[in-house]
């Protein structure tokens, strides 16, 4: 009988101990964030959408259409159309990214010899149509 009472007592206290933890947090502030109203500040390294770095003053990018990024991309999401100007210098005529295929791995950024690519902080990427998933990186 005593054993039984001790057992019941232990069981009940075990539940109460758990309850105590919950009640403790009842009086502390919320840990969640009201998302669409407030937003995270992402860390510097956050890997969002791949974009070409555009120089603010000149409005130019550094891409030389070498296709290194296209070849490195594991999912074949980048496409560059190579064009040459009068000095036989290569430049990208078209530069597209298929967001639906991108894995946000950053291998393209690492592979670029002129450091022309970067990943921005965009993360709300839902769109209505498939077509909108293909983005042109050129300004």
């Amino acid at each position, binding site marked *: 009988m005593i054993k039984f009472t001790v057992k019941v007592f232990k069981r009940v206290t075990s539940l109460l*101990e758990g309850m105590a933890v919950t009640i403790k947090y009842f009086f502390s502030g919320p840990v969640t964030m009201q998302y669409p109203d407030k937003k995270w500040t*992402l860390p510097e390294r956050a890997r969002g959408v791949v974009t070409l770095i555009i120089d603010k003053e000149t409005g130019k990018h550094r891409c030389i259409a070498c296709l290194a990024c296209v070849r490195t991309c594991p999912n074949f999401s980048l496409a560059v159309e190579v064009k040459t100007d009068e000095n036989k210098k290569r430049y990208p005529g078209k530069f597209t990214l298929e967001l639906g295929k991108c894995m946000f791995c950053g291998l393209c950024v690492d592979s670029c010899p002129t450091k022309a690519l970067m990943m921005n902080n965009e993360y709300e990427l839902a769109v209505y149509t498939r077509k909108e998933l293909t983005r042109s990186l050129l300004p």
Partner: protein
Amino acid sequence: MKYEIEKDIMTDNYYLNMGPQHPSTHGVLRLVLRLDGETVLDAVPDLGYLHRGMEKIAESRTYSQFLPFVDRIDYIAALLNEHGYCLAVEKLLGVTVPARAEYIRVIVAELNRIASHIVWYGPFAMDLGAITPFLYAFREREMILDMLESVSGQRLTFAYMRIGGVRQDLPEGFIEKARAFCKYLKPKIDEYETLLTENAIFLKRTKGVGILSGEAAINYGCTGPVLRGSGVKYDIRKNSPYSVYPELEFDIPTGTVGDTWDRYKVRLEEMRQSARIIEQALEKLPSGPIMAEVPKIIKPAPGEAYGRAESSRGEIGFFVVSDGTQYPVRLKIRTGSFSNLSALRDLVKGLKIADVVAVLGSIDIVLGEVDR
């Protein structure tokens, strides 16, 4: 009044599909249960709903290109997978990774292990009807993910390790943050224990349920916490040490009976040990380069190599065969969840349906890893 149960009423066994859309099968697993009333007579896991053909994909990708795919095998513990893969390819190439890179790898991998165990702990408690632990546990996971995001730039599929090292050095302030987190985590794990370990309902649901003997676990090829829960002291980090684990001190927790409760206990203890490892690694973190000299186009000499790591769900191994070109000829992936799941059939025989949920939760499978 007492009712006489008529024994001569014939009851037929019937089949019940649990999954693939059932919330407590943790993904797209279909269990075909043969039942007598509510007693499970047989349970056959039906796999393949999440098969993405990882091994085949590998054959058409270069060694570095396959790395982001490795993240998606076990997406809960991506860094641990990456570690295993990098070890395999580095073995094939014969490169030695700089000490600093290895230490960073261990730090982030152990953080990922804690996060992964948290993802197990929360839903496991939820399967048994306790919703509160889930919310508390995910609060801590959020912190880990924030830290890993500041290191790698992503929150789940990190693509942070590279063949021969890591992508970037640790960001400023990370070491202090990680130290503070380890300190913060320990009392939180005690709190998790207060919520469940001695809880009367939890004990009833887990003690003595789904007992897996050590011998059976070995025969099934179980690894990780499932094997250790059955009392077998086997951990790749200790038994065939890789990376810098030999320089770090930690214990391997084991269970005694091999029931659901033991597996639960082992994982909680592992979180503590991981925190211990991180603290030591942060202390010992040497300076130096973070990448070995690796050619830009990786073309290993013809040959084969097997690299393995202790993931949060058991042994994750990569068997890579090279024929001297940029692409592997064959890449076989060995995952812990797959072998652990094979023990399920034996574990649930004779239990009630509600216990199947508990046992399945305690095995901790990730379907991405089971199906690849």
